[in-house]
């Protein structure tokens, strides 16, 4: 669950990074349109949080560029201009949601969860596979009705695998989901988390496909 925050105010940007991190997101943050374009080109985000007034241009233009380039990443606009016509303009420009500043961090996290859920084509709030159920809102999990305690990264890793059952996810792909650019990644970080997860939900739950990556199978 990785998002890009495009916000130029250093204190707000830092708060979003920490706050959304606490809510289970991997957050990358940039402060202007140019850096945002570079980040979007690399891709891999489940959602975008976009400020409208950026030092080198308008977030709306950036959004329009993305939509023209057929980039369907869900976008939540974050702006001080929250009069109704502004909201309409933002939504018509291709935004999926809109929050006026100042906003509630929990509400922002909830909206982002909803956006990424929709983006992944799901409608239920929790994610389940076999007896395993994940609750993104609380970062809680349960296996056959018994609660399982997961770290933030373990939760993110497990949801990445469960979102697309039967699909093999590469290690690099999983690393991208888990860590922002600015974070140091240990070379065997994914293996360590997989190891810990297997200890909690059972060895057979996550399958290793040698030389390719990992997958979780849909119960037959």
């Amino acid at each position: 669950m990785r998002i890009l925050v495009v916000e130029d105010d250093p204190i707000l940007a830092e708060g979003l990074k920490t706050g959304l991190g606490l809510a289970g997101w991997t957050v990358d943050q940039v402060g202007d349109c140019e850096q945002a374009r570079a980040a979007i080109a690399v891709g891999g985000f489940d959602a975008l949080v976009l400020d409208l007034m950026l030092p080198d241009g308008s977030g709306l233009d950036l959004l329009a560029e993305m939509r023209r380039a057929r980039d369907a990443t869900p976008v939540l606009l974050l702006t001080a201009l929250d009069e109704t016509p502004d909201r309409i303009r933002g939504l018509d420009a291709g935004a999926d949601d809109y929050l006026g500043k100042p906003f509630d961090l929990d509400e922002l996290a909830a909206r982002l969860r909803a956006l990424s859920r929709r983006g992944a084509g799901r409608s239920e709030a929790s994610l389940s596979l076999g007896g395993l159920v994940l609750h993104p809102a609380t970062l809680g999990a349960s296996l056959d009705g018994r609660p399982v305690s997961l770290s933030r990264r373990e939760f993110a890793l497990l949801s990445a695998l469960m979102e697309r059952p039967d699909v093999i996810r590469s290690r690099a792909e999983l690393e991208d989901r888990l860590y922002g650019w600015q974070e140091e990644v240990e070379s065997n970080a994914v293996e360590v988390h997989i190891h810990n997860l297997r200890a909690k939900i059972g060895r057979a739950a996550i399958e290793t496909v040698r030389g390719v990556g990992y997958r979780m199978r849909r119960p037959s």
Partner: protein
Amino acid sequence: MSSLRRRLFLLLAAATGAIWLCAVAWTFICSRAELERVLDTRLQEAARMVHSLVAAGNMATAADAPAFEETSYSRQLSCQIWSLGGRLLARSSGAPMQNLARDGEGFVEHMVAGEIWRVYTIVDKAKDVRVSVGDRVGLRNQLVRDLVAGLVAPALLIVPLLGLMIWLSLGRGLKPLNAIAGEIALRRGDDMSAIADGEAPSEVRPLIAALNGLFGKVEAARRHEREITAFAAHELRTPLAGLKTQVQVALAASDPAVRDKALRQTLVSVDRTNRLARQLLALARLEAMPDAAAREPVDLGAALREVDEAAPKRDGVVVAIDPALDGCMLTTEPLSLSLILRNLHENALGHMTGPGRICWRLAPDGAGLLLEDEGPGIPAPELPQVTQRFFRGSTRGTSGTGLGLTIAEMAAGRIGAVLSLENRSDRSGLRCRLGWNAAGESRS
């Protein structure tokens, strides 16, 4: 409310009425004169005719002639034949018994039996007769009146018709004006688009041009205001959003290090928001200040020291104020000057990226103040824009509000000074010059 149509109608109706009355008067006078002439000629001819009959000795025939069927104009003429001795020899039927002519010849008017008569008399001394033919002036007047009434009556009927036609024509003539008025009246209050003047008559075009000019100005002012409001909203709400987010992070974090950091960020954010509020107030105050505020001599050195003491201290940044400024007096508005100095000073402090010196000194020509910092300076393309509201440039990482230089320039304009900014040539950094006229006194 005065109506152009009603006003034009009254003017046109009055003018038409006056001309029409003149025409009636002229007709009346001319007809009357002509009628008098015709009737007089008739009197003369009748008198001559009777005289020639009398001269031929046929007097009795005239007296016994049968009366005609009476019409309203019958018995117009009366004839009397008198002997010169004063005896009535004969008279036409209906003629009065009194002498119509008395003495004299030719035309005469006088009262006979309570009526005024106009009489023509021929005196024939050879035949000893005096032939008088006369008609009643009252009847003549009646004739003129009937004639004029015949002319005026149809004209009177035409008057309301004429009025109606003037009224309708005016309505048609004023249609383009009504159309434009209607178009303006139907506009939405915020519609400031120009009125099309393609169909408009030339008389209305200046009005449309003036209106369009006004619309343009109002629209520009409104756009400006909208931008300022939008900017101010953005600039106020963003730090508030940062504050709220940091507080929520502090509440949610279980790690004490994360919590402490969030709380420290909250403090920074409160300071920034406070400065922003202060600067917005300063800006509002500058805009609302009366044009002529009281001016008094200000000691530049003392003013700068005061500004420096009030400004937040930065580690490793030395503020140097040239001692030559002490006792240097400038007659100006103290509030505006202090706003300029304070905002330039804070701007310089805010842009110091590390240890260094910011220096206030008198310009070499003595007609200005110089402030030099050792920050990164401003990229040349952005120099003309930095005094715009909320412009913060592409160099991020500074915590400025984007209002400091705006306030400084605006206040400088108020006291008649000029603020100019340039990058230092000797090293990186910005040089601000606040220049006033050489007399050492700023004009307002």
